């Protein structure tokens, strides 16, 4: 028998969901609002919420002080580059583990995931020294390599989960129908796995876009992505909240738009296999 939920209970749950949603969204909203305030209003106590003199001067000044476009290009290169390379490695890895598992497959998957539990700072020194010796500090290649390695376990896991849901019978049917490995992947597996691959790509792009630790430690000027651009506004000469907020808004805007339009795909990707 289906559970009946009373109207009051539904209303209470709805209100609670909205409150939690707004609480989570509030820092972003506050950042956006602060970006339109003067520096004085940004630190005013009590703070004004909506009734202040709206100004665009922070955005103008941020544009003048920094090369925003270059940071955007760097962020795009790092997030899309690492996703592409990650995909090239993760698809065959997940494929092999999903369709030709051995008794060690689960162990390998757990080991890969366990690397995510390692604090990044624990390997900062060796990675920094390796990249310094290779002359890769403050280069896009360095960040693309690091981002690929950092996010590879998640990519493999997500794709593995997706591929596991594809019945082996269908791939065997393709083999019986005369498909070689390439045709099996192109005509059968890829079209069936497109939603999974797309979700994996989206998540990886978002994770790489938002990553700050490695960006701050391995870049200085030429390869700095948007996360380093935000950090440059928390300068030694003092915090400029309004300009920092303007820089943050400009940095998060592209990924926020991407996330908004792809949220359905993302949720489906992240919950795939959990519910049928």
């Amino acid at each position, binding site marked *: 028998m289906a559970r009946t939920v009373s109207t009051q209970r539904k209303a209470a749950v709805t209100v609670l969901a909205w409150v939690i949603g707004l609480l989570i969204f509030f820092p972003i909203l506050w950042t956006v609002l602060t970006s339109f305030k003067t520096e004085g209003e940004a630190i005013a106590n009590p703070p004004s919420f909506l009734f202040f003199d709206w100004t665009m001067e922070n955005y103008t000044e941020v544009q003048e002080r920094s090369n925003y476009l270059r940071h955007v290009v760097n962020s795009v290169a790092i997030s899309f580059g690492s996703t592409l390379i990650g995909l090239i490695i993760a698809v065959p890895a997940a494929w092999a583990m999903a369709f030709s598992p051995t008794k060690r497959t689960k162990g390998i998957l757990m080991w890969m995931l366990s690397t995510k539990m390692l604090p990044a700072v624990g390997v900062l020194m060796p990675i920094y020294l390796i990249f310094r010796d290779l002359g890769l500090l403050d280069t896009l290649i360095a960040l693309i390599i690091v981002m690929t390695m950092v996010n590879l376990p998640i990519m493999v896991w997500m794709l593995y989960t997706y591929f596991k849901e594809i*019945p082996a*019978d*269908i791939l*065997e*049917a*393709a*083999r*019986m*129908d*005369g*498909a*070689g490995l390439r*045709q099996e992947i192109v*005509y*059968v597996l890829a*079209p*069936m796995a497109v939603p999974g691959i797309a979700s994996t790509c989206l998540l990886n792009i978002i994770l790489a876009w938002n990553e700050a630790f490695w960006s701050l430690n391995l870049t200085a000027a030429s390869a700095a992505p948007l996360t380093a651009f935000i950090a440059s506004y928390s300068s030694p000469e003092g915090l400029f909240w309004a300009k920092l907020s303007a820089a943050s808004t400009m940095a998060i805007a592209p990924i926020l738009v991407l996330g908004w339009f792809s949220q359905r795909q993302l949720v489906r990707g992240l919950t795939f296999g959990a519910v049928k």
Partner: protein
Amino acid sequence: MCHLRLSNVSKRFGTQEVIRDLDLSIEDGAFVVFVGPSGCGKSTLLRLIAGLEDASAGTIEIDDEDVTQLPPARRGLSMVFQSYALYPHMTVRANIAFPLRMAGLDKAAVDRKVTEAARVLNLTDYLSRKPRQLSGGQRQRVAIGRAIVREPKAFLFDEPLSNLDAALRVNMRLEISELHHQLGTTMIYVTHDQIEAMTMADTIVVLNKGVVEQVGSPMELYRRPANLFVAGFIGSPRMNFINGREAAKLGAEVIGVRPEHITLSPDGGTWRGEVGVAEHLGSDTFLHIKVDGVGQITARAPGEVDLRHGETISLTPEPGKMHLFGKTGEVIRTPEGVS
């Protein structure tokens, strides 16, 4: 033409031997059914023939060519899976056309063959639909259509009717048998359902624990089962087995008598027993009777018989229809003479 020969074929998964040293020959145009209980190795055997599993030992020959090491696509066989295994993102037309596209046929030839297969299988009105928009029976027909268009040397069916309801299963059974008559192509069919095996096969291969127990026509297996396993597996309801004193009287370890070979009478007879459950099927009634000193016996009676729970009745096994088995379960005498 397709003459298939398996010689000393074995298959091991780790330390477990699923198929043991198996020899089998299948003639061109035959409808062969592999039957046996779950885990007996029948699906594995089919997959070995298909090339979806590698044999651990032995050789598989198709038309005198050793195909043991050939990949599935190069064996010239088609397979229909239990789950249908249709490509969910393709239409019915694309599903049926897929093997032809893989074979590199031109568009006109593909269209002609798909249209013909759809006509034979009554799928013409569904060609533009996706598999999820079809019923179970239609999906199974699409899977068969995909197998037909390749014009294979032999068709392999892996429990293709298991996911269908009882009524549809009977229809599809007839359709597959009809298709075999139309095409005349060798068909190898795996099932655990002995009724499917009996009704469809020219030849039945009974498997048990990876070993062939007996090969023969349905009536051969019914009349002259080689051992206790085959005798118990073929026939529905299953054969009654009686051991102890009654068997010893006839110089056997076990006597086998089918429910349809027991005559019921109000008195007299060889044994007397008390009626338990009566299963009324309309045309027949199956009576489960408890016989002292013999055990539980199932007997077939006419459909209109009116015997109640607890009534006493006499049973007489037809003397010429008894199967006698020895100590190891091997038959020592069939109704038609000494084995």
